[in-house]
């Protein structure tokens, strides 16, 4: 399955130190951050790293229906992508991407603002409730959660299977080693939480900071 999905890839001018496998946030948050993450990939290439951002099955250009995948599918797909890369791999995940990055074999992991699945699911359910309210339909997080046990739900434009919803609600970030986990702000990445932004934004300075931090972590992991 891994090979059938589109991969966005940037190469450095010479042989890469390592390949950075970018795991974007999940669902709408991926769209909001894509532009800045791709800028970070270009910046990584300028620092001597290859950078790859694969489409997850059911997302972007994938031919797979989102309803047919769950977090297990995504974890396996990323492990498959990592296994096909020549040379050392650094996994760099953002937000909910950190929930699916631990099955890949890597020389190191880097996580930006990792988050649990329960809060992502709560936001998706609330968006559906708010949209229903606007349409004059009464629904609640409780009634939707109950319905999701037996049927797929359309949440903020994503048709999610009962398996996906159950896995997301329970998903926690898994321990990996060696790991650098960074937040926004002092001691972390200077920037704003673009993944929350209603209209997709772009932050070139933040992209540069992300690339610098990943490159330094790569050096600490011994891939340079």
């Amino acid at each position: 399955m891994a090979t059938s999905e589109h991969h966005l890839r940037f190469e450095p001018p010479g042989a890469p130190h390592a390949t950075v496998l970018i795991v974007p946030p999940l669902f709408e948050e991926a769209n909001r951050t894509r532009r800045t993450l791709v800028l970070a990939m270009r910046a990584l290439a300028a620092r001597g790293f290859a950078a790859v951002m694969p489409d997850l099955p059911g997302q972007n250009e994938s031919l797979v229906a989102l309803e047919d995948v769950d977090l297990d599918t995504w974890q396996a797909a990323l492990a498959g992508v990592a296994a096909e890369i020549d040379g050392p791999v650094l996994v760099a995940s953002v937000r909910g991407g950190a929930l699916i990055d631990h099955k890949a074999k890597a020389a190191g992991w880097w996580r930006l603002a990792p988050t649990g699945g329960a809060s992502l699911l709560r936001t998706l359910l609330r968006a559906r409730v708010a949209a229903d309210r606007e349409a004059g339909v009464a629904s609640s997080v409780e009634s939707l959660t109950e319905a999701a046990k037996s049927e797929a739900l359309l949440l903020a434009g994503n048709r999610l299977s009962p398996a996906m919803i159950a896995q997301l609600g329970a998903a926690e970030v898994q321990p990996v080693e060696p790991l650098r986990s960074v937040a926004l702000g002092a001691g972390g990445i200077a920037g704003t939480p673009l993944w929350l932004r209603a209209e997709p934004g772009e932050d070139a300075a933040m992209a540069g900071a992300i690339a610098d931090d990943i490159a330094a972590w790569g050096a600490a992991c011994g891939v340079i």
Partner: protein
Amino acid sequence: MTDTPATAPDTSVDATLRALLADILGLGEARAAALTEDSGLFGELPEFDSMAVATVLTEMEDRLGIVIDDDEIDGEIFETYGNLLAFSLRKVTD
């Protein structure tokens, strides 16, 4: 916000709420600082759609350390900045 000195929790809730709306709606510091009690949100700001409403609720829980029961939510809370601030202050002091 006004000439009347606000108590410390009021000020910090107000600042947290403005920062959160700036992050989610991409308002920028100046527009966020210019919000008044009467500033319209849902239905007034084009960026404030149902997904933004959901994101605001989850971020309010995270940043203000509160739990919002979905029964407490009605359309009025998001009508104006003043309504949202009043709701947040009530939740924080509960």
